Each structure stands twice: as C-alpha cells, then as structure tokens.
C-alpha cells in the first residue's frame, strides 16, 4: 500500500499541465484537480492556498464535487500551492511558476492521514515544460534568462532571442512581419506609437528611443503568432510586458551598467560611398560609451493591501564618429607603390584607380579628421501601486515615462547641417481593476490608459530658415570645404552632398486614450470551458507642424544649370503671383494638421477542454472597426467596420501527461492604420515642385563652380517656370478614398509538435505560415501627381466627386470622360520613356512567409538553462509591409509602392527580411561556490542569413530607389552574420537579503564587422524595370558587384535612362550601405560592466 501511494505521489507532478488560455494579459491562472492518492478519485472541499512573494495576501480556492479548483488573476512569479483537507495529510508544491497570460494545470494528490509516510507533508517535483493549452508561437522570457544570458538592456533587445525574430530598421520584427506591425503592450494596455506603429515615435532618429530597461520588467511574453482574439490591431507579433510590482517586504536594487567603447576596437569599419571623398567611421576611443544606472524599489505601504514600486534610470548613449576626407588616386599620377595596387580604372571615366578587390585606391587628406559627437539621453522612470481591496478585488495603477533628447549626424554635408538635435518623450499611465465573482467563476477586468508621445526637432535658426541644397551630381568637395590635395572632381567627388539648412523638420505630439473591459466565465458543458468576452476602445489624436528649412528643399544639377524645388509645401491659388510665389501657387512656411482615429474591438473566445482524448479546442472571433479623420480639413478619411477575425486552435496532448503535444492553429489578424495617414492623406499637405530661375537664384551655378550661397536663396522666390521645366503639384492632402475600403489583414496558420524528453528539456518542431490578404495603399492615376487610397487589386471602380475627396461606387460615362473614375485594379497611364499610353494593372498584395523551426529548450533548473533553435524560412511577395526597406519610407498605407504605375514590374520576389537560415543558441550555468558566492557563465550565438539585395533605379520625380531594375531581391544577399556573446557574473551575498553582483558581458567576441546594409541604388538615373529577366545572381557583396551583375545579367549592361542615355552606374552598388539612420556594419566587439546591489 505504501509503495503504491508513493508511486502515485510521484506521478502527481506529471499532471501539472499548462492548459487553457484566456487569462488576463498581465496575470496568470492555475487550475487543476485534487485527488485522493489512495483511490485516485477526486476529493471535494479541499482548500487550495496559493502564496507567493508576488501575491498580496493569499489566494484560496475550494475544490468542487469533481475535485477541480481554479485560481485566476495571479501576478507572475514563483508560487507555492498548499492543500488542506481534514483527514488528509497536508500537501504542497512550490515549483509553480506563473507566467503572464498563461494558464497552467496543477493537479494535486493528497494522502489520507492513515497512511504511514516518512514525511508529514507531501511534496512534489518538477513541472512539465510543454505548454499544452495553446498553439500560439513565441516565448516567455524570464528574469533568470535575462540575468544570465548576454543580451541587451532593453525589452526590445531581449525579444530578439525568440525564433523568427529579426532586427529591422524600426525595431524587431517577427515571423516575416515588419516591426511596425507589432503591438507593444505594457501592463495590459497598448503603448504602441499611434502615428507610425513603432515603439518610439521618432522615426528619423539614428539612436532609437530605448524601450524599457529589463530591470523594471517582471516578465516579457513575446508572441510571434497564433494568439487568440483578445489580442488585435496587429499583423506582426506582440511584446507583452508586465512591469515589476512591490511585495510585502522591501526589495529593490541599485544598478549600473557601463559599456566604455574605448577599451576595445578603437575604430570601426569605414563608411562612405566607393570613390567619394567623404568617409566616416565610429571612433569609440574618443569617448563613446553606453551607460545606464538607477534604482528600483518596491515594498508595502500596507502589508498585503497596498504595495508600491518605483524605478528611475538615465540611459545614456554617447557616440563618437570620425569624419574624414579622401582623395582618389588617379591612374595617370601614380607613385610606384600606388601602381602596384592599381589594377584598373573606375567605369565612370574619372580615371580613378581600383584595387583588385574592387575598392577604390584613396588617400586620407591630411588634417581632415573631425570628431562628431552624437547620442541620446533618456530618463526612464516607472511607478506602480497595487491595491488589494479584498481577495476578489484588486487595483493597479502604473505609469512610465521616458523624456529623451538626441542628436543625429549627416556626414555627406556641410558643417551647417552636420547635426540636428531632437527632443522626444513617451509617457503612459495605466489603471486596472480585476475582480472575481460568482465563486470565482466570473472574472471581470477593466482598464484604462493614456499614452502620450512627442518629437520636437530643435534646429538652429540657420537650419530652419535656410533651404537645404542637395547637389544631385558629382561635384568636387573642394568647392565646399577645404581638402588638402584635391583640385578636381576626379580626385574628391561627392554625390548628393547637402549644403544649407535642414530639409524636413517637424514638431509632433500624439495622444491615445484607451479603455477595455472583459469578463471571463468558467463553466462545464461537455468538458471545461473558459469563455471570455471583451470590449476594447482606443481614441488617438496626432498634431504635427512640419516644414522644410527655408521653405524648400532644393535639388541642384550643376551641369544643367538647374535648380528645382524637390520638396516644398504650398497650394494652388487663383493664378496670381506674389513676391514669394510664382503664378499658380503659393509657398507656405509650414503645415499644421490634427488628425484622429478611433479603433473599437469586441471579441468572444472560448477555451474548451474536451472530456476525452486530452484535446483542447480554442476558438473565438474578434471584430474591429476603425475610422480616421482630420480636424484641420474636416475630412473624414475612412471608416472600416467589417474587420472580422476568426481564430481557431486545436491542441492534442498525445502523451496524456502533459509532456508532449501536437497543435495546429489558424487565424485572421487585422492591422490598424496609424495616424501618419491622417496627417499626410487627409490633411492639407500639398507638395509643389518647381524650377527656380537659376539666373536669379544661383548666379554662380555652373559645372565648373557648382556652389551657390544658401543664404542668398533665402527670399529668392523669383520662380520662373520655363518651357520644359519641372512644375508640378503633388496633392497628398484630401486624398480620395475608395468608398468600400476594406481592412488590411494577414492570415496565419501553423502547427507544432513538442515533446519533453527529459525533465525541463523539450524538443520540438514548429511550422509558421503567413499570407497577406488585402492591404491599403495609395495609388496614383498619373505616375505620382495625384493619389487615391484603396485596396490594390480589389474592388470596383469608383467616382471622385466634385469636392475632390468624396467618392461613390461606380462610374458614369461623364466621370470616365473627365478622369474622375478611378480603379484600384489598374490605371491607364503614360510611359515616361515613350509618352505612349499604357494599361497597368495594380497587382494584388502578396506576402508569403513559411518557416520551419526545430528547437530544444531547457528551462532554468539544476543551475542551468539553454535554448537552441534553427529556423528555415522564406519570405516572398510584392509588399514588404508598412514601410519600404529600400529607402526607409515609413508611411503605413501610403508608401510609394503603388504610386508609380510605370514602375510596377519586378516587384515580386524575395522580400526584405527574407533570411532563410536563422540559428540561435543560448545557455548559462551557475556555479554555487558557497553559501554566499556563486558564479554564473552565459553564452549566446546568433547566426543569420543576409538580406536580399535589389538593383534599384530612380524615378524622374520621386528620386532614387523606386525602380526595381531586376525582380525584387534577385541581386544577391548581404553577408551571413555571426555573433558570439559571453557573460560572466559573480554574486556575493553580503547579508541576506543584501547581495552584490558584478557582471561582464563581451558582445561580438569574434569582432565580426560584416556589412548589415547594402547600397541598392544601381543608378541614380531614372530608369525602368527589366521585366521578365531571371538571372538569379550573387553579385551583391562579391569582390566586383557591378561587374559580376553585368556578367550574370547581361541585359543590365544595356540599361538606358528613360530619355535614352546609357545609365551612370553608382560605383558603390552592392557594397555596404552609407545610411545614417541604421548601422551599416555589425557593432564591433564591446565590453559591458555591470554592478548591482539588490536587497
């Protein structure tokens, strides 16, 4: 009898199963069945008591007639469950880890008093590690993981460890989606930027606004797909974060982390276009560093009733970049040493020497070195109050803020616009109530929040009042700034050099008020159900003032003696001219807009645990509606009220004991259009393009002397549109919208197989698929002069009414005759190369992602943890997402993707972010040297395929990066990236609870500095696609990218401009990019030192 009982007790922990879903987004739930270990029958009336340092007081439940109990709304943390029942020995288990938004099953067995046992309290062992309650993909990142593995300091940094996660220009994207498609949720409420959909609102920054430090976060739940209907407004992943809370004892820490960049690798890879004079590289030894230091403390205001938590930390990033100038070595003036290196001349006819590896032979101009200081300082603060009214009612109030200021540089430019300062701010306040009713069968939650963010550029007076001048031809740098040893454009050319003031400046603020309420009800009907219904409303507003320095951003073409306004705000007038504006339009100083959007969602979902076969079915549906309007123009942009998103999951525990599962899921997910569209498409933005009379405005402009005095252009408003000169209006504001506009959606489906082969060690395989449904984009009937918004490839023709904005379905003959009949399926436009009328179809959006991941996970136990994953994926289609990777344009729903009908060809192919191989290895081990000392060692390896590379050309009006000369992604890949990081830490317990920890992280220990970006502009000339070509090549990042491309794709050699010239090839094509906003190379080796005193 005793043997049998002990065996039953050992089996009991196997029944600790993760099950169900549908718990709150900030708390978790534990449920289970209590059985008599001697009979195996359920016992009624047993009292289950949950206690935890994370829990105010204790939570109790009583088993029903079936022995079942349920403890919802438990804050994440380590829990102990105790069972008390008269006539039975007390039982407990302390291995219960509650994760946010997870429900686990903890079945317990109790032993009758009559049974003789050595221990008086029944204790049980480790819990299964397989989540058999849901089919969503992703992972919860624990504090143990963050503490021991070398990862970044912020939540977003840490989320990259999840399989399928990949860094893009604006954050971390998941499973083929771009980061602006994510939803960022903090303490259960949406903190996503309402304007662009990113985490921070400033999309022009070089050092992005850091997300919260992990010190302030209790847990990060990264959902990469397959989540249930209570989550929405995303076609990407979800970063579900819960801030830390207080406890019944005072706990906290003082911490500091310092990454002195000067200790290793004194200078980074050289940035700068091949053969051009301006170059730059990181120069950490000039004083660059990253640092954060602060404190966090939590404790009781009233024990078991009211807790507080507060934290504060400045986060500082200081960058030092060396700007220096180079002269080309010309083939006709070679020293013997140079002659040995010169194997050829550049193809542009400048006679510049090229080395055998394809690089240009250049010499650094003496005395040209200059150190540019940039950086960002953010003051993060967070606070939280947790109040337990009684066992069934709790309240939390939390908030965080991060005022920040930053500066960014521009290198290929004059000193007047080398740097720009910007102030950013993010602030959130969240209130939440959770209550249990009907004997804890009904769980009600209500929450409200306010989100605020702002970005304010701080230009100098000169930068604001002077036009930016971009020289869109090769010009000698010596015309602008001194450079020793240069006397000709052949020696020191610069292309697209910027002079004058700053181009785009803005002052923007956004607010969001949000509220949500939900009710979950637990009941039995052919099994156990957890049904949940919820309502979720968000109202966001966006104010912006924007302008261009000097009212216009000018493009100069010295050889043509031509100056044009590339960007300038204005409006069409009655045909009169003023001293500041030419006939036909008026230039304005700035544009101000206020736009709004309301998003409403209702959902119903159920988690049904079938009484047979260990199967759980999760199903639900979510309805979302959104409207958007502009207060400034009083235009209602769109209203979409038919976004129905059904989602289903099935999970089979094929082991019957919680150690394995087969699962499948399918769901539809809708994207919420951010407010950028409300400003740009429904406001009063009208761009005017015009030609300046260079005889008046640029008296010295010529090929020989290309420099104009930017200050002389201020007030120079004698525009003289001449025959053949560019004069155009780009009407962005008051954009007509298809009257039957449908929402943007993605269908996701997947399957999982997972098995726990050893205690805490699970192996598995997972398939994830995504298919883009309809999208919303602006299209143009005239190659980018006027626009309309619709679902490309779908919908019936519609008519734009006389007001220019309102629309109705269908077209009359009159509307067709006067061009007011528009179609989202295609347009009749003209061929800019021949002037011929052509019919162009707008293709339906396509984005297909398929990924197979194999993984092994070891949760932290027995002093070690590990995670190994390999993902093979492909991502292809014609729509990358809300932003264009090719030029960084982040205008969700109104990118240039469908603007230029004559450049529609070749858009299908490998999409940016298509990185077929992804390997992620993480592990750590803790050595307990003594009661007081322990040492922890962690390591991380990430291997990532390169990004697909394009060969791009320009559009006459839009500029570079618009034409896909080859089909998308056909021109090769950026290099495969390897990254190895190590971490070691030493902990010393001074006197409990005081402990001191020192840590050292070594990032990129191999000091790999491969290119992360690629210059994809094959030419800056206006060209058209080579349709129908298939010459899959690895030219990009080869030794001779251009030569290789021409060899592999001979048609490219014959490429012509739209007006018939052989194109001028960008000599930097296929090499590392020269972007300012993103790192062009892997970060070099760096050390981070950390110290923390915790109590």
């Amino acid at each position, binding site marked *: 009898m005793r043997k049998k009982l002990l065996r039953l007790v050992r089996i009991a922990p196997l029944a600790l199963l993760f099950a169900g879903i549908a718990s709150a987004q900030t708390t978790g739930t534990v449920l289970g069945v209590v059985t008599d270990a001697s009979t195996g029958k359920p016992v009624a009336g047993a009292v289950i008591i949950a206690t935890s340092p994370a829990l105010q007081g204790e939570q109790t439940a009583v088993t029903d007639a079936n022995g079942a109990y349920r403890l919802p709304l438990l804050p994440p943390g380590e829990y102990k469950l105790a069972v008390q029942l008269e006539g039975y020995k007390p039982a407990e288990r302390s291995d219960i880890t509650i994760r946010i938004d997870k429900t686990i099953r903890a079945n317990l067995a109790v032993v009758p008093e009559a049974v003789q046992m050595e221990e008086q309290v029944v204790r049980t062992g480790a819990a299964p590690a397989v989540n058999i309650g849901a089919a969503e993909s992703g992972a919860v990142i624990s504090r143990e993981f963050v503490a021991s593995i070398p990862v970044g300091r912020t939540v977003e940094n840490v989320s990259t460890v999840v399989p399928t996660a990949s860094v893009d220009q604006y954050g971390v994207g998941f499973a083929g989606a771009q980061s602006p498609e994510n939803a960022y949720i903090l303490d259960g409420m949406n903190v996503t930027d309402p304007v662009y959909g990113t985490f921070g609102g400033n999309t022009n920054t070089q050092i992005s606004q850091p997300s919260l430090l992990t010190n302030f976060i209790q847990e990060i739940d990264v959902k990469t797909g397959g989540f249930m209907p209570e989550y929405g407004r995303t076609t990407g992943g979800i970063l579900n974060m819960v801030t830390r809370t207080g406890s019944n004892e005072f706990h906290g820490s003082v911490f500091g982390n310092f990454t002195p960049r000067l200790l290793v690798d004194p200078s980074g890879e050289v940035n700068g276009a091949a053969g051009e004079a301006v170059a730059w590289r990181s120069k950490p030894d000039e004083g660059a560093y990253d640092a954060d230091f602060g404190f966090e403390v939590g404790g009781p205001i009233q024990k078991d009733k009211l807790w507080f938590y507060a934290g504060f930390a400045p986060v500082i990033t200081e960058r030092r970049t060396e700007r220096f100038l180079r002269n080309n070595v010309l083939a006709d003036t070679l020293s013997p040493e140079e002659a040995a290196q010169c194997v050829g001349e550049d193809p542009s*006819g400048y006679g510049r020497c090229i080395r055998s590896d394809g690089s240009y032979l250049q010499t650094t101009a003496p005395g040209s070195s200059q150190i540019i200081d940039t950086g960002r300082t953010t003051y993060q603060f967070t606070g939280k109050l947790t109040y337990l009214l009684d066992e069934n009612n709790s309240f939390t109030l939390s908030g965080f803020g991060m005022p920040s200021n930053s500066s960014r540089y521009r290198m290929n430019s004059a000193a007047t616009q080398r740097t720009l300062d910007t102030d950013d701010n993010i602030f959130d306040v969240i209130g939440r109530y959770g209550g249990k009713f009907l004997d804890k069968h009904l769980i009600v939650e209500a929450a409200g929040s306010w989100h605020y963010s702002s970005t304010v550029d701080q230009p100098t007076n000169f930068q604001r009042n002077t036009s930016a001048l971009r020289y869109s031809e090769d010009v000698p740098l010596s015309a602008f700034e001194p450079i020793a040893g240069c006397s000709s454009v052949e020696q020191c050319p610069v292309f697209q050099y910027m002079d004058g003031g700053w181009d785009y400046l803005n002052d923007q603020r956004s607010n969001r008020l949000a509220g949500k309420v939900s009710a979950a009800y637990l009941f039995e009907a052919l099994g156990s159900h957890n049904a949940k219904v919820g309502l979720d409303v968000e109202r966001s507003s966006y104010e912006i003032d924007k302008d261009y320095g000097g009212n216009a951003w000018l493009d100069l073409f010295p050889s043509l003696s031509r100056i044009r306004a590339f960007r300038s705000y204005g409006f069409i007038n009655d045909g009169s001219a003023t001293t500041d504006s030419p006939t036909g339009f008026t230039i304005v100083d700035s544009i101000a807009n206020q736009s709004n959007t309301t998003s409403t969602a209702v959902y119903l979902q159920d988690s049904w645990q079938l009484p047979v076969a260990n199967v759980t079915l999760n199903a639900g549906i979510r309805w979302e509606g959104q409207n958007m309007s502009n207060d400034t123009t009083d235009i209602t942009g769109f209203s979409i009220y038919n976004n129905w998103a059904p989602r289903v999951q099935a999970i089979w525990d094929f082991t019957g004991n919680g150690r394995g599962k087969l699962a499948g899921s399918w769901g539809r997910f809708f994207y919420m259009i951010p407010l950028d569209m409300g400003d740009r498409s429904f406001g009063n933005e009208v761009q005017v393009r015009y030609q300046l009379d260079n005889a008046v405005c640029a008296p010295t402009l010529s090929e020989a002397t290309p420099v104009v005095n930017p200050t002389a252009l201020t007030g120079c408003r004698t525009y003289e549109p001449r025959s053949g000169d560019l004069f155009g209006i780009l009407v962005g504001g008051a954009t007509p919208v298809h009257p039957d506009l449908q929402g943007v959606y993605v269908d996701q489906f997947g399957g999982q197989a997972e098995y726990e082969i050893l205690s805490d060690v699970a192996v598995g395989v997972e398939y994830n698929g995504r298919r883009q449904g309809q999208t919303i984009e602006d299209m143009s009937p005239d190659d980018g002069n006027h626009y309309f918004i619709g679902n490309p490839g779908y919908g019936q023709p519609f008519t734009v009414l006389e007001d220019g904005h309102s629309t109705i379905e269908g077209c009359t003959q009159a509307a067709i005759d006067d061009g007011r009949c528009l179609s989202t399926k295609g347009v009749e436009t003209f061929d800019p190369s021949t002037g011929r009328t052509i019919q162009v179809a707008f293709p339906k959006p396509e984005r297909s992602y398929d990924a*197979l991941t194999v993984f092994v996970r070891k949760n932290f136990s027995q002093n070690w943890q590990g995670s190994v994953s390999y993902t093979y994926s492909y991502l292809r289609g014609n729509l990358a997402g809300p932003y264009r990777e090719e030029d960084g344009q982040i205008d969700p729903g109104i990118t240039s993707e469908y603007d230029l009908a004559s450049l*529609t060809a070749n858009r299908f192919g490998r999409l940016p972010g298509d990185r077929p191989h992804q390997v992620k290895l993480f592990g750590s081990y803790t050595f307990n040297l003594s009661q007081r000392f322990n040492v922890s060692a962690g390591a991380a390896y990430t291997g990532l395929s390169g990004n697909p590379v394009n060969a791009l050309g320009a559009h006459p009006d839009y500029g570079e990066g618009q034409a896909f000369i080859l089909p998308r992604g*056909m021109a090769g890949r950026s290099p495969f990236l390897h990254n190895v990081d190590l971490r070691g830490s030493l902990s010393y317990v001074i006197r409990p609870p005081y402990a001191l920890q020192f840590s050292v992280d070594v990032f990129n220990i191999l000091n790999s500095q491969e290119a992360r970006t690629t210059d994809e502009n094959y030419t800056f000339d206006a060209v058209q696609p080579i349709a129908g070509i298939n010459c899959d090549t690895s030219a990009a990042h080869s030794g001779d990218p251009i030569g290789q491309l021409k060899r592999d794709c001979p048609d490219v050699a*014959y490429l*012509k401009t739209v007006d*018939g010239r052989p194109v001028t090839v960008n000599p930097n094509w296929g090499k590392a990019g020269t972007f300012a906003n993103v790192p062009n190379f892997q970060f070099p080796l760096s050390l981070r030192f950390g110290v923390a005193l915790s109590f």
Partner: protein
Amino acid sequence: MKSIRSLWWLGVVAAVAACDPYDPEVGGQPKVLSVFASGGNSNDGVLAEEDATGGGTDPWDVTSTSVCTAAVPDDPATADDESVPQRVKPDAGVIFVKVNKLLDGASIQTTPDSCVPANSWLTVTRDGVPDAAAWFTCYNPSTATSAEGSSIVIYRGENISPGFSGNLWLDQANDAGTTTAVVDYALTGQVKDKQGNLVDINITFHVEPDAGSVGDVVVDTTAKTITWELAECDGGLAATGGYHLYKQDATDDAPVSLTEQPAGTTSFTDPDMTDTREYFIAPIIANVGGQPYETSQQGPFDTTTNPTP
C-alpha cells in the same frame, strides 16, 4: 510520430519551393508585338500611331507628321558661320520595336555604350535608295509594363554614348522629312534573342511633309479679319497649296472647318468674328502623291494671344 514526419515533409517541400521565387524568362521564338514612333517622353509628347498588326511578310507600318524649321542665314556681321539649314524633323522620329522577350543586346548595338548597329544589321532605304544618313539602334531591355518584353529603339541622328552632350534620343535633330513630299523609309534586318533565335525587323516609316509655321497671326475683331504671314518653309509658295482655316465652334471645343484659302493668300474676313472665338490655320502642300496634303493645324489664334507655334 506520423504527424511529425508529415510536418518534416511539408518543410522539405517548402524548402524546395523557396529556391527560386521568380518566373523563368520567356522562351521560344521571339515575336514583335508592335511598332510605333515617339517624339517625346512625357504625356504631351507626339506619338505616331502604333501598328500592332504587322509581322509575317507585311512590314510594320508607321507614319509620322513632321515639323519644318526654316533656314537661318549666316549673319555677316559676326565672324562665325551661324547659318542653319532648313530642317524637317518628324514629330515622332524614334521608332520603338516592342518584342515579347529579352533580346541579345550584342546583336543590336556594337557595345553597351554605343548604339551603332552591331555588324551593320540594319539596312535603311529612303524612297527606295540607301539612306546616306546614320541610323542608330539601341537595345532597351526595360519596359513600363510587364505585358511587354524589351525594345529595339531605332532613330536617325547622333550616337548617344556616355559623355554625349547633345539632345537625347527623343530630341534628336534629324532631317528625315521634306517640305514637299512624304518620305518613305524601309528598315530591314535581323537581330537575335538570347537563345540565338532570329527576329526579323521589317518596317516602313513614312514621314509626312510640313510647310513650317505661319507667322504673325493677327485676329482683328474690329475689321473682322485674320491675317498671317506665309508658312516659313513653303519653298517660295510653289510648295504650298493654300491654307485651310478652322474656327472654334460656339458649342464645341473642336475646331470646325471655316474656309480654304488659295496659295499666296494671307488674310481672311470672317463677318461672324467675335472675341470669344479661336482660329486655326493648316498650310496645304499642293501635290503629295498627286493630292493636296493638309499639314497639322496651327493655333489657336485669338485677339489676345497669337503665338507662333
């Protein structure tokens, strides 16, 4: 376990499918889709009517109007010889041959940077005899619509190569027409596609004559007269068969025929003239193929603006 194996197979299939997301290039025999001529690369450029029905033994047939610019005599007061001969330039003088696939550029132009016909593949006759002027052929692999493949661009003028500082191919100043008669060009030859298949090029290109601009048009609503100067390329009146006047109708934007005036006449009285009407003048060349040939309408002319077209 069977399910797991199925998932693996699914992955393998996905991996194979992912190798190349691109459609193969168009194979088979090359086919000319259409031939047209263009005179401008904007939506107000002049286009010759597109022939999409040629091929086989029938040549592709393209006709362009032309514009004559008068000769500018040398100014003896200056040392430089600035005389410019009279030119008759087709409005749409650049011929585009649209084909259904990519071609072998090396069979069309001698080098990627030079549009000199490779191996002199193009033969051009003017009114039945070899044309002495230079013709150039460019391979343009690009297209504005994926419904078409590449193009062969044929024009009479100058070679546009890197460093070329003159007008671009659509602005080539050539002298392909006359003031008195239609000029018929026959362009024949063969090029190859990338697989070595031959493409027959057989085009007839007709350049219609032009008499040049009429000058100094005056619309006088008081005298109810319209006066003009003789067309500048009329060849001493002998070539011009008169002038056809048009008037904008009161109810329709399209000009309607008003009257024909004989050669040498430079004025007309319209008793119904009002200051809201516009007039158009089309010089008539006396004998083109045995028939009077009316050139393009010039105008509009009214009381406020009388531009010289």
